[in-house]
């Protein structure tokens, strides 16, 4: 058995080996040699005139530095994983037994655990907005002095506002439950089913679920009827109940009838709100009504994509998910969600076990997006 000292020195050797592979030392040594010899050969003492020029140059450099600071402060941060750089909206997924690190250019990082799926929805100079679709992530946010820090994590109906801190966030989409474990600093947690934002700090762990335990059917109906009766009546928009509940099979007629008369924009807003609150039946109802009443519109196509997401993520109905993603691609072959739809289609077909269709989808995906976020999955399907 190795001694502890051997272990520590072995660690150093591993680092040294990685450095050797990373730095091309021979190339660096050659480059530095040439520069050194040229510099030594041509070195001349600096004259007073030259010093004056250097002072002027220094002044200009200071101005340039100030401009660079302004530029850096206003530039959105970038992020990458082991597979390379990514753009906002890309799917970031940690495969089984293969955690994925997401590194941000200002030093913050996420560690996505096995099977976790997330997206960085947007980035800006002071942080980013990250959607945790399902799974768990270790989060380490670097506080940037001078610029302030603004990070926001979304998980189902919950939002976590961060300044500079470390925590673990887990979201289980199927059970609509959230676990937030603080390691240092503090965050502000809010959500559709929380009466008010709540500060979580120290080493506190919070477990929350917007899903309520099942109630007697009559009680549920009464509660929902009451909630929707007031909100649908109050135009312009239906509002989700403060405590979003797991829906029962029987939905109140008022929501359905509200959908029949609501505007396109309202239907989109209602569907999103209900989906995030975990009310899958209502979200589907709003989306299906949207497609029925406003068929052919961009919103109707997007509704098809969202229906696919609901089927895949919240109902594990991969056949229906595949149908909706294919519908989106038919209706919007060059639409903004086309890449995601194509990727999720091949994913759904792979889950269904439809290998022939999944291979076709994978080939089509790789032709269009050889470096896309689903490229590794597509290659894996083709190699099986």
């Amino acid at each position, binding site marked *: 058995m190795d001694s502890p000292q*051997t272990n520590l*020195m072995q660690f*150093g*050797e591993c680092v040294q080996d990685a450095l050797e592979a990373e730095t091309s030392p021979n190339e*660096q040594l050659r480059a*530095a040699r040439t520069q050194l010899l040229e510099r030594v050969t041509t070195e001349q003492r600096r004259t007073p005139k030259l010093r004056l020029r250097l002072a002027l140059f220094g002044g200009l450099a200071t101005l340039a530095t100030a401009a660079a*600071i302004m530029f850096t402060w206003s530039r959105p941060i970038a992020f990458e994983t082991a597979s390379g750089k990514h753009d906002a909206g890309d799917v970031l997924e940690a495969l089984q037994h293969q955690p994925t690190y997401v*590194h941000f250019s200002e*030093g913050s990082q996420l560690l996505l655990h096995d099977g976790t799926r997330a997206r960085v929805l947007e980035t800006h100079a002071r942080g980013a907005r990250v959607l945790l679709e399902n799974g768990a992530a270790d989060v380490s946010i670097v506080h940037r002095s001078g610029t302030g820090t603004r990070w926001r994590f979304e998980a189902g109906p919950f939002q976590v506002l961060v300044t500079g801190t470390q925590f673990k966030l887990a979201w289980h989409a199927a059970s609509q439950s959230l676990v937030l474990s603080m390691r240092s600093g503090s965050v502000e947690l809010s959500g559709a089913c929380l009466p008010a934002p709540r500060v979580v700090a120290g080493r506190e762990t919070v477990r929350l679920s917007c899903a309520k335990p099942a109630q007697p059917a009559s009680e549920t109906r009464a509660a929902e009827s009451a909630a929707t009766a007031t909100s649908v009546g109050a135009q312009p928009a239906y509002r989700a109940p403060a405590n979003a509940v797991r829906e029962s099979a029987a939905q109140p007629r008022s929501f359905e009838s509200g959908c029949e008369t609501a505007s396109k924009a309202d239907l989109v807003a209602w569907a999103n709100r209900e989906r995030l609150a975990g009310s899958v039946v209502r979200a589907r109802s709003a989306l299906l009504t949207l497609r029925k009443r406003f068929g052919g519109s961009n919103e109707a196509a997007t509704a098809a994509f969202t229906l696919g997401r609901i089927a895949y993520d919240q109902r594990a109905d991969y056949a229906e998910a595949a149908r909706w993603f294919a519908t989106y691609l038919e209706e919007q072959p060059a639409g903004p969600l086309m890449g995601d739809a194509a990727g999720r289609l091949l994913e759904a077909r792979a889950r269904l076990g439809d290998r022939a269709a999944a291979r076709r989808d994978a080939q089509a995906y790789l032709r269009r997006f050889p470096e896309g976020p689903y490229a590794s999955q597509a290659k894996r399907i083709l190699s099986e």
Partner: protein
Amino acid sequence: MVTPLKFVGDDRALVEALRGRHPGAVAALYERHAASVHRTLRSALGADAELPDLLQEVFIRALDGIAQLDDHERLRSWLSSIAVFSARALIRRRARRRWLSLFSPQRALVGEQAPPGEARFALREVYELLDRLPLDERMAFALRIIDGMPLQDAADACGVSLATFKRRLGRAERAFVEAAERRPLLLPWLKGGTRWTLRKQI
């Protein structure tokens, strides 16, 4: 391209030749010691894009100060101490720049075009953790654990007694291990087949 005259001789002759501005002496100094200086700088800073410039700077400083070298047998350790000094100066400069947020806290890694891999991220994590250590402790860890220098040579390069160096190294190891154990990416390197523990100072 400069092709200097070839210099032949031992370190004593080399030091004399450098003082006498022999045209081939600089190339000879570089060829004998550049690889070791490069390794020391790299251990202290990681895979850093500024390594070639810093390597050059170490030799320029050495040439400027060659008159002060009193013992030619110390040439190698003297160069190591200049390398340590230069690396520390760069780390301090960066800390000031970081304060201004001019540069990202992420170091400029060599080979940005190369396909990134887990080892690259693990390396980055190692140096992120070293960035958090006090500078004296960071250098002790880098020279002893990563560079693999003997304790006395590392103490000489840092310009401190062996006892002081050991104290710094002990603190660095404890802090580093405590932080590294929370980094899953470093576990394969940390666990060399047995449970990861601090080594004893011998």
